[in-house]
């Protein structure tokens, strides 16, 4: 475990956390040319950087995340994670991942679920216990360590899933709409917690979302994508300061609103925004 985190740290100094070069993904259909989910996508994520992927349904943002996680392989182009091919990074456990569904094992307790990756990778029982207790405290569920997932609310389950993704102190977190199924109140609270956790762990994050305020509130950069075929329309720098300084007040900040409308304009294909390629109007994005 110690060795693992040491190699991770040395990685972060030299290479970008994620380096996507000219990636395309075509899902072959039984007849016809197939569906182009992604076309010529290039993006770099620096160590410790928080990057959101936003766009309407079908823009390939989840596909891109799955490619980075090596849960799927690109049709063209290359993906490197900390200077290694995505496959090697997965085998070396360089990233932690959280999905839209918490995906907890219902027959394991909260602690058991968080210990799962540690157990699978051969960490001793005592060390596992301690690490799980630490993470449970981090996500504020200390009173629920012995509970089963079906006894928890959706937000609590998602916090367990996030704790699980952090279990091996990854230098990269991949999150696929982790708050997508939560109500707005829980969602904002979870965002605040994620900001705090990111400030503490210093991990780079690739975050897929539908929600413009969520993307702006959390990110250093917001990648706006357009559908059919999935492409990067533009990348918006959000200059709202580092993670440690972000708090609830930020939601009322002028810079926050500025970035919000910038992303919104890009999503709606507004040429007046000054950036971005022309494209059809984009629907299906939550602007709340």
């Amino acid at each position, binding site marked *: 475990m110690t060795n693992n985190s040491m190699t991770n740290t040395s990685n972060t100094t030299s290479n970008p956390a994620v380096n996507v070069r000219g990636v395309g993904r075509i899902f072959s259909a039984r007849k016809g040319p197939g569906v182009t989910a992604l076309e010529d996508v290039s993006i770099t994520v620096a160590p410790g950087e928080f990057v959101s992927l936003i766009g309407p349904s079908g823009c390939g943002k989840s596909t891109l995340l*799955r490619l980075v996680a090596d849960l799927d392989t690109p049709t063209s182009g290359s993906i490197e994670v900390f200077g290694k091919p995505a496959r090697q990074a997965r085998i070396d456990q360089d990233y932690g991942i959280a999905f839209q569904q918490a995906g907890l094992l*219902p027959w394991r307790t909260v602690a058991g679920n968080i210990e799962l990756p540690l157990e699978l990778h051969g960490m001793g029982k005592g060390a596992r216990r301690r690490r799980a207790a630490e993470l449970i405290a981090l996500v504020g569920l200390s009173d629920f360590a012995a509970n089963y997932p079906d006894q928890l609310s959706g937000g609590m389950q998602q916090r367990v899933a996030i704790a699980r993704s952090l279990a091996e102190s990854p230098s990269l977190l991949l999150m696929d709409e982790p708050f997508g199924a939560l109500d707005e109140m829980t969602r904002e609270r979870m965002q605040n917690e994620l900001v705090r956790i990111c400030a503490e762990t210093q991990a780079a994050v690739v975050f897929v979302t539908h929600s413009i305020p969520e993307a702006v509130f959390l990110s250093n950069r917001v990648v706006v994508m357009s559908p059919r075929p999935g492409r990067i329309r533009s990348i918006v720098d959000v200059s709202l300061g580092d993670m440690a300084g972000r708090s609830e007040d930020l939601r009322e900040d002028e810079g926050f609103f500025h970035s919000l409308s910038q992303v919104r304009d890009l999503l709606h294909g507004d040429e007046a925004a000054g950036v971005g390629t022309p494209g059809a109007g984009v629907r299906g994005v939550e602007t709340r």
Partner: protein
Amino acid sequence: MTTTRPGAAPSTAAQTVLAPIVFGVAVILLWQGLVTGLAIKAFVLPAPFAIGAEFAANLQNVANGMAVTGGNALIGLILGGVVGIALAIVSALARLFDEMAAPIVAALSVVPIVALAPVLYTMFGAGAETARQLVAALAVFVPVYFNTLKGLRQVRPVHRDLMRSYAVTSWQATRVVTLPTALPFVFTGLRIASSLAVISALIAEYFGGPVGGLGKSITSAASSSNYGLAWAYVLGSIILGLVFYSAALIVEKLVTRRSGG
């Protein structure tokens, strides 16, 4: 009992227990009344009190019969269950094996398995219980195999992705996710199989083999015109089937408490 609706908490427990008992007693009394009132002959339908008397008088014999038939059913249940689960795991892991096994298992499921009993008696000798145990095992194998295989294919995509992201071996993934997901299905299969095991072991006795089991006892009592005794053995068979089914049901409930969400 009469006016409280099922929603009322205090009376529900009493209701669930009491209602079937009252109904059962009513049916038995009606049966007794019909048999004596209409003077029905014992070979057509003996009176329940007569059956009860025979049951009490021959308690030891009925219990011995239950032990023999129950033993065969249990061995068959364990054998068929183990083989069914093991082969289902192989089928789930190796597509080729699954494709080879599918037509054979499908054929097995439509064959009346007790029909194999006479053949098996010739194979293993009429003095051994082996043939009956194998009949029970074959009957058990089919539902256990199908249910386990179905259960092994219930792994949620998010769990599959998670296991892939952990870069674990396929055996680790099977142990941590696939088997626990399949467990409720395995036990449903075993519950269905538990009564099949008793029925098959009992029916197999009709085709030959050593005496002592419930099936043989029913036929010999009936052929010696001792109808009350024959029905006492039938009662023993019903009790044995219920014991197997309830045991399997309890185990299923215990094991699958936590596999809902």
